[in-house]
């Protein structure tokens, strides 16, 4: 059991490690993408990410995906966004079948 833990060969549920833009951040210019890095590999077919504006309208380019070269990175492209509040929603399935979900906001001033 401890070998399993130390070698990281088991796969637990995925939890966000960090993101860009950062959770709750205020930034000065529109990002090209919204990216969230997780602490474990994700199942691409069952992991989603969306960006909404303050009115609840989806504003991303609907190309959310798990990065093919980094299975811990969930990302979606966004157009040039005007100043305002934005809400990121994510829902992922870890390789072991455990689902986690979450959301956060960021502000473009």
């Amino acid at each position, binding site marked *: 059991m401890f070998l*399993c833990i130390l070698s990281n060969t088991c*796969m637990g549920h995925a939890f966000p490690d960090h993101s860009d833009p950062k*959770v709750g*951040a205020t930034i000065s210019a529109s990002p090209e993408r919204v990216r969230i890095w997780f602490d474990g590999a994700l199942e691409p077919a*069952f992991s989603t990410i969306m960006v909404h504006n303050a009115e609840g309208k989806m504003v991303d380019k609907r190309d959310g995906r798990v990065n093919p070269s980094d299975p811990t990175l969930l990302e979606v492209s966004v157009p040039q966004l005007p100043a305002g509040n934005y809400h990121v929603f994510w829902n992922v399935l870890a390789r072991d079948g*455990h689902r986690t*979900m979450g959301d956060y906001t960021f502000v473009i001033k």
Partner: protein
Amino acid sequence: MSLFKGEAMRDCGRTNWGKNGLVVTIALGFALVCMLVIPVSSWAHGFAGKRFFPTTFKVEDPFVSDEFSILFSHLKEPDAKTTEIGIDYSKRIIPNLGISIGESYLHQDFTDGSSASGFGNLELGAKYQFLTSAEHEALFSLGVSAEIGGTGATRVGAESFSVVSPTFYFGKGFGDLPESLKFLRPFAITGVIAPNFPTRNSNVTFNEDTGENDIERNPTTLTWGFTLQYSLMYLQSFVKDIGLGTPFSRMIIVTEFPMETCLSADCKGKITGTVNPGIVWCGKYMEFGIAAQIPINERSGKSVGILALFHLFIDDLFPKSIGKPIFP
């Protein structure tokens, strides 16, 4: 074929196996392949939406899971200094229903200078998580646990009778607070309430000095307790990245209030309990925690004690074998 339930049932009743056997066989085969190929999605232990509830020290978890815990406790009680190591294993039968087994080993140094060691009574339990609200980060469970009398050593206080405890559990995160109170969203509470019914009302022992029987009544008690939590994981991931690094980004500040009120016999109305401020660290596969035990009155203890928790998430360690429900 119909998408309506009632009609689908009637269609099933008309199925002719001989005529449609090949179709049914192919459908079952396809379903089996899907089960093997497509990952089975399930919510991990202790989650209600994006809220993760950690395992706490003395107050029982409000959720069902596959887990293994070791809890170390040391407290100077009124009549003895007690050191206890408890182990607990929980196993899900179906995703929302689990059973548990627990045992503890105690060492007591009594105020008269004597000491004793031995196992406590075996504890068995079953729990059903009947409601989980992702939107409101809430979960509720009902369960029953039993301390099996006569399975432990009487020299460390293990009773000869059993105690049965029907239990209500709850957990609630504050993630649905408005934006203006967003820094309160990482707060959560969990709690438990359980009457404890002894299977024997009294113990009768013959007193050789008086030549009469001594009758000791076994009280019914009420266990009630709650935890107040502030999750730095939640703060960092869903509210505001304040730059916490490892290990602080995976910590949850927990204060427990495990209490017991005596409902009958000589102790009726008296409360014992502790306030346990502490912190837990939650990794992908395990959890560590440490807390102080502060007695609320002299009946509960004489000085500050300590709690230490080591916990394994069996469902994350072995998601495809012993960590999944027996009937997933």
